[in-house]
């Protein structure tokens, strides 16, 4: 298991390759990557605040839950905080399993929990000013399926 909460950018390709290499033989690897989104053609910058101390603890608990629930060879969560430029990777999740159903389910579970239960808060910065990203109703609803 690998959990990293960091301000530094990470290299999605390098992390994905390294993860796949170390679970070689698991058969199925799923990754999810969240990028700073384009808003109507304009790449926004983002400021991400988090709760040092609680964040890694909360994420580790989520990964433990996923590991208990699905048959996983390994799991990885990297999440950035601080200032991010448009198009940069905010976070990634990777899961490995013998069969794809477990890898997909665990990745979706981790994403649903990271969205609504990991102490991060995103602020979008644009030419017009800044605004805290509002939690989406669907994200809260998504948790109910687990």
């Amino acid at each position, binding site marked *: 298991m690998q959990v990293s909460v960091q301000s530094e950018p990470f290299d999605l390709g390098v992390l994905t390759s390294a993860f796949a290499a170390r679970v070689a033989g698991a058969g199925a690897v799923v990754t999810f990557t969240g990028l700073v989104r384009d808003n109507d053609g304009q790449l926004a910058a983002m400021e991400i605040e988090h709760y040092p101390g609680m964040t890694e603890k909360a994420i580790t608990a989520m990964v433990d839950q996923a590991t208990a629930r699905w048959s996983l060879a390994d799991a990885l969560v990297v999440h950035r905080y601080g200032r991010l430029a448009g198009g940069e990777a905010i976070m990634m999740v990777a899961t490995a399993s013998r069969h794809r159903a477990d890898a997909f389910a665990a990745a979706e579970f981790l994403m649903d929990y990271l969205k*609504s239960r990991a102490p991060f*808060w995103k602020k979008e910065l644009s030419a017009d000013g800044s605004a805290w990203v509002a*939690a989406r109703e669907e994200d809260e609803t998504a948790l109910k399926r687990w």
Partner: protein
Amino acid sequence: MIDLLYFAWVRERVGAPRERLETQAATVMELIAELKQREERYAWAFGDLTSLRVAVDQELASFEAPLAGVREVAFFPPMTGG
């Protein structure tokens, strides 16, 4: 003494990321009531409880959570990770 932590717009409204407080409040809800009476900025931060979340000693908790023995309470809006 309890450490109070504020994040995101709760922090902005309160005007500080953290503070220490001597309180007799028995639950999170009583603590919120106490803070709201102190100053307008707290009333503003804690005005709408439906958009407020709380962590007690770094675990998500309900407003009814007891404060006995607690060292750290954090207030923040719904999380937007991922």
